[in-house]
């Protein structure tokens, strides 16, 4: 299948390079887990186009992105430091060590659907700050929130969509429908045919896109961004893709799906699709692809070295970040922790 439309060669090459980078990083992270470098990881194999395409459609200098636990490709597209991102999987710090206030990527969220309402609040905050329902020539800053087909079952997602639609908040609900929520397939999860179909009930536009087509995802997300920036309220995108890997490094998909099914999904590999267009449409040759792969492998190696070098955070940080204003009881606990660990 060709990509939905063809952007200029340079842009497509840039997208391909990003796809390759996150693919190699993702494969590498699974290896690190096997090697004992990190205790666990949630692979995004197969979802590169959905993540890179959507992540490239927003402007992290003004917009804000709310990930789940699987959006490594989005983080990379936004320019987040990958060692700081991966630190969550090293069990260094739950939310990751990157600075969310600076990067405009919210902390990694382990609660399914946990961030979706936050995105609505942030987006509505942009409207309130603007002090004018007319967004003006620059438009509103927008929020982009990610969640899965499984997460769409949570009540909070309904609340978020209804709030946003009522208030016309500039937020994009980006669903990666990867076919599975751990062992539960989408047809046992999503009633009514699709998540996109629900948008009509909120009076909100929605697009279902081929999530393995990086250009289709990029363009659909850009349309949604334009829609929200212009003050037209929220929009939903459902990127249809496939979780090619296990749910996480401790999952065994053999218990709930067949190899044949996994193999047929591989035909839609987003990297191969992009590569084909580059070759057929622009005559791009092996040299480019080999170089992209070599660079990606080198970068993954670099990130690995950074992850390996990450030491544990000092224990006093447990106490330091609970509040902005420390309480006496907590300070006393920190003191007794320090004393006991020195004497142990």
């Amino acid at each position, binding site marked *: 299948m060709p990509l939905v439309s063809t952007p200029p060669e340079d842009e497509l090459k840039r997208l391909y390079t990003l796809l390759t980078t996150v693919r190699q990083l993702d494969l590498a992270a699974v290896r690190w887990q096997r090697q004992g470098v990190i*205790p*666990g990881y949630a692979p995004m194999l197969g979802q590169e186009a959905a993540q890179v395409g959507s992540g490239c459609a927003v402007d992290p200098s003004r917009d804000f992105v709310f990930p789940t*636990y699987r959006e490594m490709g989005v983080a990379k597209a936004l320019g987040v430091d990958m060692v700081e991102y991966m630190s*969550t999987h*090293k*069990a*260094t*710090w*739950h*939310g990751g060590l990157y600075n969310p206030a600076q990067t405009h990527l919210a902390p990694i969220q*382990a*609660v*399914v659907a946990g961030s979706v309402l936050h995105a609505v609040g942030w987006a509505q905050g942009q409207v309130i700050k603007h002090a004018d329902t007319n967004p003006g020539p620059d438009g509103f800053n927008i929020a982009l929130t990610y969640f899965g087909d*499984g*997460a769409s*079952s*949570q*009540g*909070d997602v309904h609340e978020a969509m209804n709030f946003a639609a009522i208030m016309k908040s500039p937020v994009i609900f980006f669903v990666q429908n990867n076919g599975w*929520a*751990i*062992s*539960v397939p989408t047809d*046992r*999860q999503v009633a009514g045919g699709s998540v996109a179909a629900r948008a009509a009930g909120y009076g909100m536009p929605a697009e279902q896109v081929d999530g393995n087509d990086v250009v289709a995802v990029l363009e659909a997300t850009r349309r949604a961004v334009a829609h929200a920036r212009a003050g037209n309220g929220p929009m939903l995108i459902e990127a249809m893709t496939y979780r090619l890997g296990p749910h996480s490094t*401790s*999952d065994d998909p053999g*218990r*709930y799906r067949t190899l044949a099914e996994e193999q047929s999904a591989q035909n839609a590999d987003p990297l191969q699709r992009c590569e084909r267009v580059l070759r057929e449409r622009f005559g791009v040759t092996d040299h480019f692809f080999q170089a992209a792969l070599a660079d990606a492998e080198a970068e993954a190696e670099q990130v690995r070295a950074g992850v390996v070098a990450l030491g*544990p*955070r000092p*224990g006093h*940080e*447990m*106490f330091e970040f*609970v509040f902005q204003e420390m*309480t006496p*009881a*907590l300070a006393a*606990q*920190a003191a007794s*922790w320090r004393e*006991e*660990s020195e*004497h*142990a």
Partner: protein
Amino acid sequence: MLDATTLNPAQERGATVELSMQAALNLALAETLDEDPKALIFGEDVGRLGGVFRVTDGLQERFGATRVFDTPLAESGILGMSVGLAMAGFHPIPEVQFDGFAYPAVNQIICQIGRMNYRSRGTLPMPITLRVPSFGGIRAPEHHGESLEAMFAHVPGLKVVSPSDPQQAYHLLKYAAQRPDPVIFMEPKSRYWQKAQVNLHDGGTPEGARVARPGRHLTLIAWGAMVSRCLQVAELAEEDGIDVEVLDLRWLKPIDAEGLAASVAKTRRAVVVHEGPRTSGLGAEVAALVTEECFNTLKAPVERVTGFDVPYPSGDLEDEYLPGIDRILFGIQRVLEHRRG
């Protein structure tokens, strides 16, 4: 999956079988489904997958997808539906996948499950056993290492229990699933895979606390995964001539005040150990009960060795947070060295 027919035929009354806690729980659930046609098991990934910890492994295959089923991913939905199923005469045994994911369901658990019997003047009992893989110690992502006992014990209308080993797990789960009241069943996930001998026919009394190790000099009070750690501590203390009694509290609501008093009346010193944060943790309730029951015999204030008032940390800091052997030994030292002023 294990079932009674696959057990060694030599498995007779009094004989024991070696099981992990995961297998013991699985067996208890299978027998419950077998013996109670109204029992239902549901939750996220409990059917085809058999649960992320495999506690429901094989149950859907054996009992069918009507009685053992996967729900959509929504904890409030799972617990809210349990209320209606209980009203329809069923005995729901829902699972929330991890402790931290009970939070999205607390509205249904607290406002509905805990109150329906009362609201209905006893006409709508809630025989619901909510299984919650609980506590920390497995270097898991955020929200996979919470200790919810104090929160649930505080709620009128809920009972709370936590097994510490496979024997307790098997018998307590079977007992909980037969109760006419809601029971929060907290499974110590770090202990799922440790094996021990289980006597399937004789579990002793399923109510109250249990002396896991008798001793004379002080009582260590714990539950869930901390019981085995306290047993380890007791062995280390023994090398220094300190004879530690370990009381496995088991029921965190209702707490066995008599059992507590009996132990501490004998040892005259108590240290309570739990993973959850210290402030308003269950250790405070235990300390109050011990003080009420044993004030005149106590030789030292009840000592608490607990988690800190901080969110459960990432794996790298887990050992700094959890009550470790050293911290428990320090607690023991403090109660032994206490002198009344």
